[in-house]
Structure formats: structure tokens, C-alpha cells
């Protein structure tokens, strides 16, 4: 299958060639039809610069971007007509009503059957009652939803979403996530997604890239990424003297600590959990409660940005 | 009124001012620019004029003291919308700052800018068109004070409207000066206006200030009763505007209009 977006060796250096600042450093990836790709990274990692280059608002220093198999530089109009973008820093004209704004964007994207499409999107995002209000009079949650409606207006094959849920109430955010998933499933829309909400990324994305200092430092499915980081935390509550537990754990060289008298927390690779539990039981320790915490994307993200992650 | 907080307001504006090079435009570029254009214009007019009056002095005198009204009517309002646009207004008034302290702070900074603008204009007008502060004589003081006061009056009304109605009425910051200018007889005598406009002009304190500026420059002296009338009207309008401003501020605060509108 033809990839929707191919990025190869994309780099951006701001300022002079010798003393400048490298914001994006040799980034390559592809995005296929119907795939949701998460782009994560701390502030200043180069996410926004990457996205802005993908939209043609910043010219890359080196590297190629192509949409639908055609180079973006020479097929700007055709490419932009089939993609769209939503973010809190790209709004619509504030002194014009919501409907008028959508009408203009529908026109610029040459959408057919405009008024039906607008009505459909206003209903989908539950902002029908704002249709005839001036954009600046809306609340920030309503603005975000109108911008999402704008992002869907041309039935894009690829949507770039920069923090789409950041200013939304949790129930509306969940709704937006649902819409995104439905679009992917029913219409095979591909999505490039950035968010600070790790749980959301874990839930939505098929694949995740983590950027740091302009480079992609990790790329995999959320599950595989969390597997790579490996360690789980097992918290065991037990009966009996803690000396026995202490000496066993020391003998087997487990990393552990005792938060309370009869409780011990052990950090260990997931697959070693049974061995630990059986081992303790064989020592005659009576285990009254076992709690296992698997790492989430949040931990992966933190370990990468702290530099403890190895590829 | 706590003068420490007033000082903090002045300092805050000072920082904002230094950061933004283009606000210097408002102080230097625009007044100088106007003077330059009117200077060239009036040099031409003087040569074409059927009258024997010194048109250059009269027109440039008009534009110089008009600057006091122009800047005073805009500076404070611009400071307000700057706070509103940067969503800083709520931060300011969630501190112990009172509205009087806020006003005092922005008024002081606006006065400072006004002095710089005026000094700069006299520098240019003196160098190129030999119009000096002495051309006005002592009359410069009441003229400058009167026009500044009228500028603040207008600005207070506009600010109240902005707090009440939001974005839509911001345009009045700029429109007010254009509205007042033709009726204030900045460049021509009151009798040049049609009858209906003269009636309107007589209600403006600014009209008398410009009329007397001209007669003073032509050596015909000043009519003190007119000056008295001008200041009487001026103070009356100012007090009404101040009352209106405080009232609207309280209303806007009670209704949460500022948060709603910005």
C-alpha cells in the first residue's frame, strides 16, 4: 500500500550554517493509510517545527517530504487539498461567524455540497448552536471544536493534530477521541497526533515516535515501547518477619525498598515476576497481597527524556 | 492610593515599552511625520494664500498642540486594550491594585511620553520651520493642559465603552480623535465652519483653545472669558467621564463582562 506521508532525512537548522540551532535533525518516517501515529517529546524537542514543515509554513534545510507519493515542494496545492490540520495556534478569523468561517474554508478546499457538510460537522462536534456567533465570542472548548470541524471539512486523508484535546473538558475530549477513532476505522483516515496526555496517546495511537533534541529517539507501538523499558513494580504485603524477606531479596540481588514494615516494593523485569513470587513462597513467606504495576507510556517518556532509555 | 503600586504600574508599562520598539513609533515617528507633512503642505499654502496671515506658524502651531489631544486620547486606552489582549487585566486586578492606582500609573506614563513627543516636535519645528515654544508664549501652558485634559476625558469614555462592550468598540480609540478634529477648528477659524457645525464646535473646550492660539499668534491677544469657558467645560466633562468610567468599571466587574468579552 502507498504510504500517505513519507518523510526522509528531514532537517531544519535556524540561523547561520555554523552557529545556528538544529531544531530537527535527520528525521525519517512514513505514515500509512488509516494509521494513527503519535509524536511525543518534551517542549523544544522539535515536534512543532516538524509539523510546521509538513504544512509548508517553514522550509526545511534538507530532506524530503512527500504526500501520496508525490514531492510536497512541487505538488503543494494538490497535497494540501487532501490533508488538514488542527491546533490551538492555528485559529480561524475571529470577527466572522462560525458558519461563515467554515463556508470560506470549504470554498478554499473546493468542498462539494458545502452546506450539508458544514451542518454535518457542526452536529458531529456538537457546536450547532454556535453556528451564527462570531468566533471570538466562543469559549475555548467551543473554539477547539470549531477548529476541528475546519480540520475535517475537506474529508482529509491525513489530519495533523497538535494537542487537539488540550483545552477540552474530559467528556468532550473523550468524544473527540471517539470521533478520531471512528474516522480511522470507517474512512481509513491517517492521523499524526501530538499530545501531552500519555494515556490518550496510548489509547489512540497505533505507533508512537518520541523526539528529543530534534531526533527521533524511539519508535514503536505503545505496547512494544513499554515492553522495552521492561521493569514492572511488584508491591507485596506479607506476614511474618521481614528479615527473611530482606535476606532473600539481597541474596538474589533484587532492587527493593520497604515503604512500611510488612510491605516491600521490588522493581524487576516483567517476566521475572513469577520467579520472585515463587521464590518468596518457597522461603516460607506468607504473601497476603500482591500488586503489580506495569509501566505506561508516561514512564517510557520520562525515562527517555531523563536519558536512561537505551535503544 | 498606594504610591508603591502606582510606581509598579509605571515600571510595568516602562518594561512593556522598552520591549516593543514599535511603540517608539507612536512617540517619535508619527508626530514628526505629521509635522513634516503639514510643514511642506503649509509652506505651499502660505505661498498660495490670499490672506496675509502666517499660515505656516498657524497650521504647525495647530498640529503641535493637537498632538497633546491626540496622544492623551489614545495612550491610556491603548494601555488598557494591551492588558486586555494579553489577558493580563484579570491578573492586575486580582492583585491589591485599585482602579485609581491603575489609572494614575498609566496617566503618569502617558504624560512622560507626551513630554518626549512634544520636545521632539519642537526640535523639528524649530529647526525646519522656525516655530518655537516662544511662538506660543505663556499661552502654551493652558493650551497643552486643556488639550491633554480633554484627551483624557475622551479616553475615559472610550475605555468605559470597551469594558462594557468589548472588541467591537475598540475602534473608537482611533475614531474619537478624527471625530473631534474638524469641529475643534485646529487649522481654520470657527467662522469657516457651516452654521450647524459652529454650534457643535462651541460645545467643545478644544475649539476655544485653538481660536485663542491663533489670535495670540497674530498678536490680537487672548479672550480670557473664552479661556475660562473652555476650562469650565473641560473640567465638567472630565468629571462626568470619570464618574462614567468608575460606574462602568464596577458594573463590568459585577457582570463579569471583562472575562466574557476578552
Amino acid at each position, binding site marked *: 500500500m502507498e504510504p500517505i506521508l513519507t518523510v526522509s532525512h528531514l532537517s531544519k537548522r535556524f540561523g547561520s550554517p555554523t552557529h545556528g540551532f538544529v531544531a530537527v535533525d535527520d528525521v525519517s518516517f512514513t505514515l500509512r493509510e488509516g494509521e494513527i501515529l503519535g509524536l511525543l517529546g518534551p517542549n523544544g524537542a522539535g515536534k512543532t517545527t516538524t509539523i510546521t514543515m509538513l504544512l509548508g509554513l517553514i522550509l526545511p534545510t534538507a530532506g524530503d517530504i512527500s504526500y501520496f507519493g508525490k514531492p510536497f515542494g512541487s505538488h*503543494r496545492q494538490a497535497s494540501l487539498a487532501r490533508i488538514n490540520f488542527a491546533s490551538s495556534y492555528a485559529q480561524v478569523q475571529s470577527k466572522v461567524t462560525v458558519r461563515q468561517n467554515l463556508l470560506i474554508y470549504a470554498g478554499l478546499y473546493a468542498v462539494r455540497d458545502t452546506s450539508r457538510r458544514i451542518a454535518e460537522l457542526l452536529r458531529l462536534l456538537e457546536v450547532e448552536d454556535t453556528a451564527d456567533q462570531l468566533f471570538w465570542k466562543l469559549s475555548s472548548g467551543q473554539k477547539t471544536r470549531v477548529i476541528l470541524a475546519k480540520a475535517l471539512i475537506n474529508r482529509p486523508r491525513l489530519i495533523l493534530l497538535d494537542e487537539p484535546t488540550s483545552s477540552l473538558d474530559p467528556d468532550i475530549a473523550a468524544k473527540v477521541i471517539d470521533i478520531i477513532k471512528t474516522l480511522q476505522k470507517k474512512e481509513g483516515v491517517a492521523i499524526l497526533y501530538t499530545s501531552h496526555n500519555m494515556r490518550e496517546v496510548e489509547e489512540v495511537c497505533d505507533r508512537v515516535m518520541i523526539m528529543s533534541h530534534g531526533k527521533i529517539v524511539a519508535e514503536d507501538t505503545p505496547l512494544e515501547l513499554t515492553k522495552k523499558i521492561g521493569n514492572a513494580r511488584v508491591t507485596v504485603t506479607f506476614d511474618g518477619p521481614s528479615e527473611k524477606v530482606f535476606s532473600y531479596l539481597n541474596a538474589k540481588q533484587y532492587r527493593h525498598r520497604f515503604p512500611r514494615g510488612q510491605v516491600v516494593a521490588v522493581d524487576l523485569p516483567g517476566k521475572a515476576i513469577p520467579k520472585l513470587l515463587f521464590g518468596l513462597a518457597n522461603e516460607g513467606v506468607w504473601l497476603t497481597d500482591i500488586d503489580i504495576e506495569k509501566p505506561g507510556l508516561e514512564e517510557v517518556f520520562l525515562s527517555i527524556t531523563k536519558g536512561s532509555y537505551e535503544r | 492610593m498606594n504610591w508603591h503600586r502606582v510606581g509598579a504600574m509605571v515600571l510595568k508599562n516602562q518594561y512593556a515599552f522598552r520591549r516593543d520598539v514599535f511603540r517608539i513609533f507612536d512617540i517619535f515617528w508619527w508626530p514628526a511625520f505629521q509635522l513634516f507633512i503639514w510643514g511642506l503642505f503649509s509652506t505651499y499654502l502660505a505661498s498660495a494664500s490670499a490672506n496675509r496671515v502666517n499660515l505656516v506658524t498657524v497650521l504647525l502651531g495647530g498640529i503641535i498642540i493637537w498632538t497633546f489631544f491626540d496622544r492623551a486620547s489614545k495612550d491610556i486606552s491603548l494601555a488598557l486594550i494591551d492588558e486586555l489582549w494579553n489577558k493580563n487585566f484579570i491578573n492586575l486586578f486580582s492583585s491589591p491594585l485599585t482602579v485609581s492606582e491603575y489609572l494614575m500609573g498609566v496617566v503618569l506614563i502617558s504624560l512622560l511620553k507626551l513630554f518626549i513627543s512634544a520636545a521632539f516636535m519642537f526640535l523639528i519645528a524649530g529647526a525646519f520651520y522656525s516655530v518655537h515654544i516662544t511662538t506660543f508664549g505663556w499661552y502654551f501652558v493652558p493650551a497643552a493642559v486643556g488639550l491633554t485634559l480633554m484627551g483624557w476625558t475622551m479616553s475615559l469614555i472610550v475605555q468605559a465603552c470597551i469594558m462594557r462592550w468589548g472588541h467591537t468598540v475598540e475602534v473608537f480609540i482611533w475614531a474619537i480623535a478624527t471625530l473631534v478634529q474638524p469641529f475643534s477648528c485646529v487649522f481654520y477659524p470657527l467662522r469657516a465652519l457651516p452654521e450647524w457645525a459652529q454650534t457643535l464646535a462651541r460645545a467643545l473646550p478644544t475649539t476655544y483653545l485653538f481660536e485663542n492660539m491663533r489670535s495670540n499668534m497674530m498678536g490680537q491677544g487672548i479672550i480670557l472669558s473664552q479661556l475660562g469657558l473652555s476650562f469650565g467645560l473641560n473640567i465638567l466633562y472630565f468629571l462626568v467621564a470619570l464618574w462614567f468610567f468608575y460606574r462602568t468599571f464596577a458594573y463590568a466587574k459585577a457582570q463579569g463582562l471583562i472575562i466574557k468579552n476578552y
Partner: protein
Amino acid sequence: MSANRIVYILLHTWYHFIHSMETWVDIFWNTTVNLLIFIFIAKLIAGGSAVGVEGAGLILGMVFWNAVWVGQYNVTIGALWEMWSKSFNTLFITPLTMEEFIVGQMISGALKSIIAVVISALVAYWLTGLSVITLGWMLPVYVFELLAFSWGIGLMVLALIMRLGTDAASLSWSLVFLVQPFGGVFYAVTVLPDALQKIAALFPSTYIFAAIRAQYLDGVLETGNTWRALGLDAVWILLGYIALRLALRQTLTSGAFARLSE
């Protein structure tokens, strides 16, 4: 270039226009008030109720000046409204090109200019009996030539604003006034010092206004000046377009373009 997208930019400008009091004030209110001031000055220098030859020059200058002012203002302010709304980015990630956007602004600016010229011509007729209709079929030619000049300036100012950011927005309504003294708007440039006359020769407006005055006041059709103006117009638009293209390339490389909407 897609005619369809230009139509939507025009529609966008129209929607903005009906909601924006600023545009109404700038285009109709300011132009009328400025004309009023000039009419009164014209009457003053003529020393009577008739405006005389010089006065007629002033009034004609102000009526047609509005074509330059509104045309150039519209090209730059159209982009600024989008930047202030943080929607400049959003527009340019659609298939829209900068050229289509600018052509849209030029067309809407032309419409607004024509309306402004018509209104001021009516005001001038009402107050002074001066009728621009006597210019006959040359009237649209003059207006078009002035508009073309205003587009050239508009492109250059827009290029400057892109380079300097929205802080420099005041250039969009101030820089064009340089044309007033140098471009022979109110009087023949022969009254200027020699050095300034050389600058004036580069402005198409110098020839257009000279032709307007010659035709209106002396009944002479100056075809040579009309052609010269047309040629200079083309040069100004070309230079403006090159400046804009350079600014666009530079800001797209530096990342400043993406930040214009912040």
C-alpha cells in the same frame, strides 16, 4: 492561480467587512472627515466662500487621495486582520497561494476605494459645488492608475510587515502618507526643493494628480503624464511583488512566517 479561491477570499473579506466597525470607520468616516478639514482649509486660503484655484487643487487632491489610501490600506490590513486572529497560518495551509490572497485583497480594496472616492466626491460637490464628473471618461482612468500605485505600495508595506512582524503594523496606515508631500497630491511638485522634486518624479501619483489638475482647472488633457504614470505603476507593482516574494522566502526559511499568527 485559481479564480475560485480568489472568489472565496473576496467573500471572506465581505464577511469580515460586515462585522468590522473598524473597516467602516477607516474607509468611510476617516476619509470624509479628512476631506472636510481640507475643504475648510481651502476656503480659508481663498479668503472667501469660493474655493479658488488652489483650493480646488486641494479638494481634488483629497478626493482622489482616498483611492491611494484605501487601496494600499486594504492590501496590508487584510493580512493583518488574519495575523491578529491567529488565522494567517490556517489560511495558508489550504491550497490558497499568497498571490491569490493578495489579488483578492486588491479587488476588494478597489471596490472600497471606489466607494470612498464616490462618497468624498459627493461631499465635495455638496459643500463646494466642485464636480469630478466633469473629468468625464478620464475619471476611471485616473482612479485605476492611482489604485495600481496603491497596490504597489501595499505590496511593499506588506513585505515590510512580514519581515518586522505585527509590531510594525502601524506602518500599514502611516507609510503611505509619505506620498502626500512627495507625490504631488495637493500641489504641483515644482514648489518642492530640487532634491525632493527628483524623488517626486519616481511617484506615479505626481503625474496623475498633475493630469487631474490640468484637466479640471485648465481643460487640458495631459496624455503624456497619463502614460508615464501607467509605466511607473507597472514598475512599482513589479518591485512590490519582488519585495513580497523575497520577504516570503526569507520568513518561510527563518520560521518567522509561522510565528506571524502568534
